[in-house]
């Protein structure tokens, strides 16, 4: 279709006449008022718990803790206690219990905190560990009963806030000093859990809070906050409950192995951020940059990220180091201090191209823009007009999705058949069933071996073109979203595989992260090989797995073939 005709159609627009607007608006107002008064109760299912089906890794725990400890750490501001009736119960409380959800209910991990003085006892739903956080000494003691491991994290340069209650007070009291501070009282409402409350919207520059308070005591029972791009929901808040002080002890229990590490909370520099991006592409994103770099996305994905790191086979100490580096990476975004907003354009971009910008920001009014490219070099750009156009806002995926977290698209299943051919060649047919998200521009695939070469791609039986943005990586343009069947034919020399006396070793890596993965081997005529223990067989199933979530690496397996003597 020619562009002028397309443009013409798109320009045939309607502007609502004021009468029409008023008529629609009246109906909308009525519906809105009814909605407010008859809001139905619905508690979302804790999807998060279903994701967690494996013991937590030390990395995942570190990642969650490091990220989570920043929740509630607000930049210091003037604290003038106003709206006193509402904040009085908080100001006087000695201890509290609350559940923190980062992101949407049901999509992120639920963090349950018990607060006593300067100490927090924190558990994260689905993670079999408990952490005691002492804000006075800036230490976290994390205990994993399964492995009897105690990890002591020494946080350096933690902002000086004596205790968690103080954080809450700080939040509530500093709000009023913010520009554009406004409270809209919403009256009596019923929360999802059936509790009757008084509700209000609090808006201020750069943030928004929905607060529900007890009608009798005025104590907050729910605080849902959006600040910048971060969303934190505090639910089920209770003050002055009975607590056993021994639960807050920082002593390592008997029988536990102790390990220690450090985290500098002032280290959220550009260099830390870049290092975090590098680690992401190397260990987490299969060579791709993250879908987005918001803290809440990271926290939501933390346990899955932990599994990826675990799959790297690195020693636990190394895993912990990566966890800490990722913590510093998050600090850059969490306490971002640049002039104007940052822009991230790395979604779906593979590491390596020195001409593709993935992130830019202005560190200071007096400084030029810093542009980070896909090979992670930084250029300074003085002229705003030469900056790349900002990508579409990333708002389409409220819930955590593994495919999003790992920079590509996840497949439902991949069946890979390795055809061993004469001359020591292998032709692999990878049949992939996948559902392409609505807004995906291309399907990225990655061959498990650098010596591999993609020869053809069939989409629902039709040959389709593909491009190769980097060695071993390919992109298939998406013509349509939805359920698709992809057949990728690729080749590699047999000697690209690691070999011992008995067999070759095959890396179990689907071309696209997949939940189900099968690997079969077929010996073609005159291949010159036989299956070592079954010389009469021509084909063999080597591996099958059905995982709870898509993965890009299932380890390795043997290809038990020997040359015909």
């Amino acid at each position, binding site marked *: 279709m020619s562009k002028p005709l397309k443009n013409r159609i798109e*320009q045939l627009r*309607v502007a609502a006449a004021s009468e029409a607007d008023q008529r629609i608006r009246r109906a909308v107002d009525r519906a809105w008022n009814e909605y407010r008064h008859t809001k139905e109760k619905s508690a979302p299912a804790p999807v998060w718990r279903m994701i967690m089906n494996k013991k937590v890794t030390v990395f995942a725990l570190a990642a969650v803790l490091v990220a989570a400890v920043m929740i509630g750490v607000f930049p210091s501001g003037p604290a003038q206690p106003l709206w006193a009736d509402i904040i009085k119960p908080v100001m006087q409380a000695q201890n509290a219990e609350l559940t923190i959800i980062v992101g949407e209910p049901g999509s992120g991990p639920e963090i349950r905190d018990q607060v006593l003085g300067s100490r927090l006892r924190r558990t994260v739903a689905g993670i079999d560990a408990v952490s005691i956080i002492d804000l006075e000494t800036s230490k976290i003691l994390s205990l994993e009963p399964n492995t009897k491991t105690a990890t002591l994290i020494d946080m350096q340069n933690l902002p000086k806030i004596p205790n968690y209650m103080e954080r809450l007070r700080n939040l509530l009291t500093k709000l009023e000093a913010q520009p554009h501070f406004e409270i809209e009282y919403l009256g009596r409402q019923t929360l999802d859990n059936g509790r009757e409350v008084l509700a209000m*919207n609090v808006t201020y520059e750069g943030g928004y809070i929905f607060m529900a308070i007890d009608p009798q005591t005025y104590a907050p029972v729910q605080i849902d906050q959006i600040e910048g791009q971060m*969303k934190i929901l505090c639910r089920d808040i209770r003050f002055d409950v009975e607590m056993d002080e021994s639960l807050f002890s920082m002593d390592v229990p008997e029988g536990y192995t102790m390990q220690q590490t450090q985290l500098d909370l002032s280290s959220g520099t550009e260099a830390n951020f870049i290092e975090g991006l590098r680690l992401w592409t190397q260990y987490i994103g299969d060579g791709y940059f993250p879908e987005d770099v918001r803290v809440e996305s990271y926290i939501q994905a933390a346990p899955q990220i932990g599994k990826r790191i675990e799959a790297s086979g690195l020693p636990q100490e190394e895993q912990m180091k990566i966890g800490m580096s990722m913590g510093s990476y998050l600090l850059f975004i969490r306490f971002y201090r640049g002039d104007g907003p940052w822009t991230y354009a790395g979604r779906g971009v593979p590491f390596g191209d020195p001409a593709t910008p993935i992130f830019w920001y202005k560190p200071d009014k007096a400084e030029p823009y810093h542009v980070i490219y896909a090979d992670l070099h930084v250029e300074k750009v003085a002229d705003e007009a030469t900056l790349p156009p900002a990508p579409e806002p990333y*708002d*389409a*995926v409220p*819930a955590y999705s593994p495919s999003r977290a790992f920079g590509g698209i996840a497949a439902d299943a991949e069946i890979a058949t390795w055809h061993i051919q004469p001359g020591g060649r292998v032709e692999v047919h990878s049949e992939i069933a996948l559902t392409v*998200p609505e807004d995906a521009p291309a399907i990225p695939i990655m061959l498990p071996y650098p010596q591999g070469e993609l020869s053809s791609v069939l989409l629902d039986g039709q040959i389709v073109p593909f491009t190769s943005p980097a060695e071993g990586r390919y992109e298939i343009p998406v013509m349509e979203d939805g359920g698709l069947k992809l057949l990728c034919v690729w080749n590699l020399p047999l000697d690209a595989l690691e070999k011992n006396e008995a067999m070759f070793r095959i890396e179990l890596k689907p071309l696209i992260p997949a939940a189900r993965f099968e690997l079969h081997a077929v010996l073609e005529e005159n291949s010159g090989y036989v299956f070592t223990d079954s010389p009469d067989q021509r084909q063999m199933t080597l591996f099958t797995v059905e995982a709870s979530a898509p993965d890009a690496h299932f380890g390795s397996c043997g290809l038990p073939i020997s040359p015909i003597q």
Partner: protein
Amino acid sequence: MLEDKILIWKSKGGDRQAFEAIYQKYLDHLLTIAVHLLRDPALAEDAVQEVFVRFIQSLDTFELRGSLKAFLSCCVANGCRDMLRRRQRRPAGPLDEDMAGPAQPAPPAVLIRDEQDRRLLASLNELPYEQREAVILRHHGGLRFRKIAELQGTTTKTAQSRYTYGIEKLRTLLNGEGSNHE
């Protein structure tokens, strides 16, 4: 403007202003689709009103899984189809001609800038409903063919063909080479 997701989240929390932002952002867009599909500004307003009312009623359970614009566009297209069905069950009226009849005069609510716009609008109105729907949803709703197919209860290929035929017919009509009837 805040992202749609945050606006929805705030709306769920009872923030009327957040919902107002959604309303203002998409009102004209939805009216455009409805007017093109129904060719009756009054009915189009009813369709859009119904979409907003139902959207509010389902806010509690609503989860945004794609673009809000595409979601609301689908809702309005479904609403238009329902209206046409309801109309067809009634005694004959002007809209009964809609599915296959000759072109209606251009709806006054569409902004016409020049003669080319007027001719294009007249040509669009001559397209059979499903072709017009495919063209409008593709270009005003930003919908992919799979979504259009779901909405029309057909296959993706058929939806794509309807769009292609629609565009070809528009070209023919605009070039003055085609007949005025399908």
